[in-house]
């Protein structure tokens, strides 16, 4: 029982981690809680869902390729949307007080969520099964190929992000902007373009998570980003917001906590675990688990 719970926790935890990376990237650079991250996750899932008919032929011959196409489209779509959101709703407020940008990001979140509802309707949508859901038995643990794909894609994206920020020139530029906008700008770094890039990456990662959830759990709703966004934010805070490895660690810990707690408390309460964790972490250790390394913020 317990090994199975651990597996489930790591699966849902890697979703939290992906969305949490979006929060942490933007927070690291702008010190802004981007509430819209939750709706970028939703939009990603719906882009994938709406493109399923278009890739139906491909899904028949090469399902793996179809998944890659859907993933790329969702990530690209949400990534661009995130950049637009920044240009329209955050950039004009860069020098305005915290309250303004916070309310702005909140408004964007509700706006996008309601737009999705108006465009596709309030009813839940069913994702077709593209990857087999027949479980494999690995020792005491049953996992489906679809879950394996989910974790593999999530891990690959996290690794790619880590490589990007640590090993590339652009990644170094991002870290520089996170430390200080003006100094970075004097060093010749195009700060605004780097910020756009950050939003793109955050939106793309959130979209990947949304699509993977759709592929794996089969159902998506227009307000799926509310709960997931809040849980992922909790994960980011738990790991130390602004810290990339922290977001991953926080996501996995939160996933494990939720799935393990399901063995002792009724499942409808497991969602409340995230909020309890958020309250405890912020009240007791606001820097998060890996938060001391403030110098290495992105």
């Amino acid at each position, binding site marked *: 029982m317990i090994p199975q719970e651990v597996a489930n926790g790591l699966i849902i935890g890697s979703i939290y981690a992906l969305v949490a990376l979006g929060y942490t990237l933007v927070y690291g650079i702008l010190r802004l809680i981007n509430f819209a991250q939750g709706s970028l996750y939703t939009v990603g899932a719906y882009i994938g869902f709406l493109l399923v008919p278009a890739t139906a032929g491909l899904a028949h011959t090469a399902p793996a390729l179809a998944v890659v196409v859907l993933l790329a489209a969702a990530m690209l779509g949400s990534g661009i949307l995130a950049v637009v959101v920044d240009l329209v709703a955050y950039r004009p407020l860069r020098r305005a007080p915290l309250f303004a940008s916070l*309310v702005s990001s909140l408004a964007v979140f509700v706006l996008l969520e309601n737009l999705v509802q108006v465009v596709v309707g309030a009813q839940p949508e069913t994702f077709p099964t593209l990857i087999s859901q027949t479980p494999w038995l690995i020792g005491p643990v049953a996992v489906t190929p679809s879950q394996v794909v989910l974790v593999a894609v999530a891990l690959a994206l996290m690794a790619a992000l880590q490589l990007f920020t640590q090993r590339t020139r652009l990644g170094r530029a991002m870290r520089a902007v996170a430390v200080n906008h*003006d100094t970075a700008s004097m060093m010749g770094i195009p700060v605004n373009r780097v910020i756009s890039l950050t939003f793109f990456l955050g939106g793309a990662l959130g979209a990947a998570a949304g699509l993977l959830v759709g592929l794996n759990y089969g159902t998506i709703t227009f307000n799926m980003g509310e709960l997931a966004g809040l849980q992922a934010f909790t994960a980011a805070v738990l790991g130390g917001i602004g810290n990339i490895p922290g977001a991953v660690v926080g996501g996995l810990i939160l996933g494990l906590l939720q799935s393990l707690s399901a063995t002792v408390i009724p499942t409808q309460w497991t969602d409340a675990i995230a909020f309890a964790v958020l309250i405890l972490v912020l*009240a007791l250790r606001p820097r998060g688990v890996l938060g001391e390394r403030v110098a290495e913020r992105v």
Partner: protein
Amino acid sequence: MSTTMRRLGDRFDAATRGPRGRVLALALAAVAAVVPLALSQYDVDVLTDVALWSAIALGLNVVVGFAGLLDLGYMAFYAFGGYAFAILSTQAHWSLWACLPVGAAIAGGFGAFFGFPTLRLRGDYLAVMTLGFGEIVYLAANNLQITGGPGGIFGMPIPTLGRLSLGQPIDYYWMALALVALAAWVIGAVARTRTGRAWAYLREDETAAQAMGIPVLRYKLLAYVFGAVWAGLAGALFAAKQTIITPDTFTFTESFLAVAVVVLGGVGSLPGVILGAFAYIVIDEYFQAFTASYSGLIFSALLLIFILLRPAGLWPSRQRAQELGRSGLAPSRGERPDPGQGRGAGLGEAGAVPPGGGAP
């Protein structure tokens, strides 16, 4: 729209000051009480919603407008009041009049319980915490036995006053109007006390307020609890009027709309937020015919436009000038004196400061 609303609100605010203003306010209240006698039951029902939302907006305005705390889970307190009435009246056969103070006390008590560990956090973290609090209350109402789960509680008795049965739409309207009048009067009075000035101080500059010896956490807690009480009262009245209460009445969207009403109506201005509530209910009623999601869409879009047009500060300068005791000299809120700082979204002391920074 909101600029017009704000201007109207400002003018109204100025007109209702002083002894002559008190007469005007009383006259307006009398008109508000009498006019619905000539309206249809449907219109009276809509006006009751306006009154209930005015009470909500007035209460939230204490938290957002006076103390400057962004509360994204305010409707949770509405739920406490509503469920208190629903449970006590159906299971213990309490009257509405006994339930109102109890509902208010429960809402205030939970406000204190939740506020104490969280209010020391910086503004953005506090916003997320209140969002989480609202979600927990929603989850609890959805899953607990005592709240009736997703189906909620129904069959609350019609309130009575002595032998008089208060079951007509106009009765509920008058009760709600009485609540608004009480809220406007009490909140307006408190705003002019030492406490109100302390709120304005900590909203404008928390660090300076603390340095001047203002117990920041205590005043934040006071604002939070005092604001919660009004939602509790409004929630109990709402449950009595509907005779049913379900978790759907205080989702995150509702809490967001409450914030939007306060911000669009004019943060800190009592007549402004009442106008905001009026606008919200009218728009909401109009679009109910299509689908409920449009009010979320419209208000989020309005809020976004508004905030982009007025980024320097949501607080009307006239109000701030008045609070700060000088006119025209007050710097806009959060204006950055040193543009060389270049720290993103205006979180002044960003850098290495943890979210708990700045409080005792």
